[in-house]
């Protein structure tokens, strides 16, 4: 524990700015994965443990498309669409077969898929870790403001993710489709009785979740090492976010992700050896005080 260091930091403006942006950066990528996990859980009541593998696939797809075409934009789009379609297939072929089973059976199925994907990735792309390298567009000196430093790429990443978060939130709360999705989450039987194809909604949620995870993988590719099994830590953090924010809530996923980001960035200063424990502690506290999460409905 290093509380004096934490004290020094929160009294210095430049430290607050730098660590907050750092929390923002960590949180935003996490949000893209966690939003999918949260939506899928909220609507389908499925604990999609395989979501981290979607993220991994996104990174590898980006690696390949970028390698072939040299266009980062194309690679990102391809990864989002590719992984979205994969999510759709995953829902139709696999997870839809265990709807209504015990949560633990769904977990078993997801684990099987994780094992297969991790090995397939190794067979196709090799066991060694890969690195994409920063696309030339972003190779510029970082911005400075208020004594803090923000690299160009991260600024792009924050803005893009914020836009997506806002659009996603609007889509869920304002559009007809969003209302259907929310209705399915509360009472699928009733929605189905009204003549709406709930199966289509389920598939749609997986498509969307997959696209977001694929996008997260693509955006992570230039700065993170790409390796089989990279999805694991992300999916565990996503579940922490989902629990903290409230299952099925986009706003909750955003706030939860940012909270985790901040815990990580300020925790590094105050509790350098216990940041992971801190995240689980936060999750435990939320569960004890408000089990449905900060933005979740009481059930």
């Amino acid at each position: 524990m290093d509380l004096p260091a934490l004290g020094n930091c929160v009294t210095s403006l430049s430290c607050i700015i730098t660590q907050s942006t750092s929390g923002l950066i960590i949180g935003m990528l996490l949000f893209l994965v966690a939003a999918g996990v949260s939506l899928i859980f909220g609507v389908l009541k499925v604990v999609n443990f395989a979501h981290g593998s979607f993220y991994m696939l996104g990174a590898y797809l980006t690696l390949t498309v970028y390698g072939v075409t040299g266009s980062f934009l194309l690679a990102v789009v391809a990864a989002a669409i590719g992984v979205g379609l994969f999510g759709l297939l995953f829902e139709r072929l696999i997870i839809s077969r265990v709807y209504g089973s015990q949560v633990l059976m769904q977990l078993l199925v997801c684990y099987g898929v994780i094992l297969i994907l991790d090995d397939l990735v190794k067979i196709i792309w090799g066991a060694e870790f890969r690195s994409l390298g920063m696309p030339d567009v972003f190779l510029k000196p970082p911005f400075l403001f208020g004594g803090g430093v923000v690299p160009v790429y991260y600024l792009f990443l924050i803005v893009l993710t914020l836009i997506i978060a806002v659009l996603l939130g609007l889509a869920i709360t304002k559009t007809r489709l969003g209302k259907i999705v929310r209705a399915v989450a509360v009472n699928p039987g009733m929605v189905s009785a009204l003549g709406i194809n709930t199966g289509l909604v389920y598939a749609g949620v997986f498509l969307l979740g997959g696209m977001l995870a694929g996008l997260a993988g693509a955006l992570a590719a230039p700065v993170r090492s790409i390796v089989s099994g990279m999805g694991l830590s992300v999916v565990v953090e996503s579940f922490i976010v989902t629990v903290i924010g409230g299952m099925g809530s986009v706003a909750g996923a955003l706030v939860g992700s940012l909270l985790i980001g901040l815990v990580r960035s300020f925790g590094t200063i105050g509790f350098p050896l216990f940041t992971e424990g801190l995240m689980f502690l936060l999750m435990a506290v939320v569960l004890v005080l408000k089990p449905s999460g900060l933005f979740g409905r009481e059930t």
Partner: protein
Amino acid sequence: MSKGSDTRRHRRDFIKTGAALTATAVAGFPFVSRAQNKPIKIGMPTIQSGRAAMVGSSSRNGCMMEIEKFNAAGGLNGRMIELIARDTKGKPEEAARLSRELVNSDGCEILFDSESSAGAFAIHEVAKDLGVVVMHMNTETSSLTADPKLRVPTAFRASRQGIHDSIAAGSYAAKIAKDKGLKKWISCSPDYAYGRDSTALFLEYLKHFYPEVEVVGEVWPKLYQPDYTDALTKILQIKPQAMYSCLWGGDLTAFVDQSTIYNLFTQMESFTINVADYTILTAIKNLPKGLHSSNRYLSTFPKSEANAKWAADYRAKFNEYPITWSWENATGTKFILEGIKKAGTTEAKKLADAIRGMKIESPFGVDGTVTMREEDQTLVNYAIGWGQTIPKDPFMPDVTAVDWKVIYELETAWKKKNNYT
């Protein structure tokens, strides 16, 4: 049938290998033949899946370099070496189980430990229990061989060692620090035993050689942490003159990539000790100039024909660059094979006696030789050098060798301090 295909196995030939292994398992297990030319089986618990899967492939490749030569030369009176590698998935309890299985059920007479350090300690216990010869190939944790309480007469280590590297790093870094007046240091190392031990020792020796050094901060990212933003911003806050980091593998490439976009390396001298290994050097797309690193493995250091040739052979055979685990496993294998030749048997006690204190020719040694030190059964006299990176092959053109005399002297003092004598 299984012998030939097994010794020439390639990592993608898994179906064939699987079939061969089944055949040996089925044919060999219930009716153990006492024939003179039955193969000498060596069991190798190693990591072949998950994030550290490279450990397994590079380790096995390193071993095969030596085993093929041995078998081609006729083996031990016609007895060929057969290497059986199994995936521990990085779990220590699997490492323990597999080691026991390899010895008890598969009839392996020798164990190659190509695991991480937690796995290594588990295998060490098995070797003690079963009394077989084990060669630790990868673990750099010094206490495994330095602590007499842990010593097992049939256990050896053929890898580089934390204490050696730390002394070498400290002496080199202190020289640079004195020249450039680098007094404010920060460390950024992975938060687990290796990271903490190496960092503490490095800082101790850095101060030993240059007492004016002041440690102004430390950051401890988690092992396999995908994002280093929090660590980087903390480092930038503190504004040190120099940074030490013993991050490795995929963590290191991500760290370097992320540091680059923060322009971190232009603001301080960086001692990223594990950069000079080909997986890292080739994986990083924009390798920064001027990072200080020790040689994990370089085909240009030691600068000898033998080393260059070994690297070329390795690349030709496996179509990939050798890395630090490759040379360590090749070295460990060579000790075992030379030991078998010298002892004329695979019997554990005699084999261990033969290996203890042995000196062999090696492309990786300071003077073309390395030694399995008698007192603590660990590898010494391997080449340790330091230099600075450039973005292109040969990546680290000028490497300064570190003098083993300094290492021996401080290692002895370190052992005394820890009551290891």
